[in-house]
């Protein structure tokens, strides 16, 4: 599902004397359906950069980043848009929404974008929010005023409402209490069982050990190591 070949990434900061920062080079990895792989490495080693490249958010300078057969390095914007709508889900650490939109609609949105009837999409959203212990009194409110943990759960609900065949998780259990952490781990296990390929960053080691089949140390992709 995910296939990386000889991927490199540099940032050129034109407004700071054209400084060039090399982050990754020669990155190779493959993740197949039903597999959950954790990216590890110290802070600043390029885990988040790699995740963003897998989502087509950061542009690679070289190599192939293939997700479900689409090379994100070469693909036209509309191919990536379609991929994200149908195939590739992403649970980030930050919730970015149109202000004043009710939580229920925020969660239902990935389904609405796929053309699922609104009533059905909202039902699914309600089920997922209930499972993630978001009180029903909050469903009609915008998540912008929610606590960190609540926003994170809304984000998770958004990421899991459509059974994406490929899923990227950026610290999905970071600011959650034990009960909700278990719910999220169950959701991940369910997704794996139905064949979703998952790549995640987990600082929560117990969670990582519980759901991940493999670990890839991103430090190995840093330019110094590859040379």
């Amino acid at each position, binding site marked *: 599902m995910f296939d990386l070949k000889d991927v490199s990434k540099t940032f050129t900061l034109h407004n700071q004397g054209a400084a060039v920062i090399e982050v990754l080079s020669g990155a190779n990895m493959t993740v197949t359906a039903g597999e959950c792989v954790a990216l590890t490495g110290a802070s600043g080693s390029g885990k988040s950069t790699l995740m963003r490249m897998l989502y087509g*958010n950061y*542009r690679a300078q070289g190599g192939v980043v293939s997700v479900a057969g689409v090379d994100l390095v070469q693909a036209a*914007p509309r191919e*990536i*848009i*379609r991929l994200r709508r149908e195939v590739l889900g992403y649970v980030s650490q930050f919730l*970015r929404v*149109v*202000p004043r939109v009710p939580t229920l609609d925020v969660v239902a949105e990935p389904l*609405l974008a796929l053309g699922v009837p609104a009533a059905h999409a909202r039902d699914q959203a309600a089920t997922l929010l209930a499972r993630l212990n978001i009180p029903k009194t909050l469903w009609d409110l915008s998540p912008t005023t929610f606590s960190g943990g609540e926003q994170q759960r809304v984000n998770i609900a958004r990421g899991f409402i459509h059974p994406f065949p490929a899923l990227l998780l950026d610290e999905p259990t970071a600011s959650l209490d034990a009960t909700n952490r278990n719910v999220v781990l169950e959701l991940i296990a369910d997704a794996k069982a139905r064949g979703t390929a998952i790549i995640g960053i987990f600082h929560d080691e117990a969670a990582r050990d519980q759901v991940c089949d493999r670990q890839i140390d991103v430090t190995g992709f840093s330019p110094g190591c590859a040379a």
Partner: protein
Amino acid sequence: MTDTALLSVRGVTKRYGAHIGCADVSFDLYPGEVMGIVGESGSGKSTLLNCMAGHLAPDAGQVVFDTAVDGPCDTLQMSEPERRMLSRTDWAFVHQHARDGLRMGVSAGGNVGERLMAVGARHYGDIRGSAIDWLGRVEIDETRVDDRPTTFSGGMQQRLQIARNLVTGPRLVFMDEPTGGLDVSVQARLLDMIRSLVRDMGLSAIIVTHDLAVVRLLADRLMVMKSGHVVEAGLTDQVLDDPQHAYTQLLVSSILQV
């Protein structure tokens, strides 16, 4: 996925004497896509929008639109009546100032109904029914249908302008700073509304704005302009999160944090 672009723009150039309005702009827009055009004032984004929408005649280039009847046609070669017909059927244009897009002396219902009559609707009851339906969709109370837009607030006028534009079921909407000049609470509501309408009607849209937060929420794709040239284009979040061009980096790093 359809492979025919809804709009193909090729080498559009507009000069104001020696000064460049926009130079050699090319891109394809596909059905259902929303593209944002950003840049500082004077960068040529409104000139480009007006060239595409047929309000300004470019000095060079093609604007090929996939018409419902005849397939792809260069709109710049069309006769004036053909282009006018296009601009009231398949196209819509939402002005920054609602006053430029509305008839201020005509009732709200009349503003919406006029577009319908322009494409041949003649049954008064049907026209009024559609107008009321559309006022509801843009969250204007039915009781205001006979009031003139002069009695509306700025946000309501903008929503009325959107209703007037969308009532004929266009396939491509040009928007020039649709949320400019509105206070933030109205802006949020308008953004949500535009997004739902785009999704539910399968519209394509080109949105010119200088507000990067607006494009992040509304646009799938982004084009960055500077001094009449497109300096960078791509997926909205990719351009904003990993800008490659010096000017885009400057633009993104200049946003004030709230």
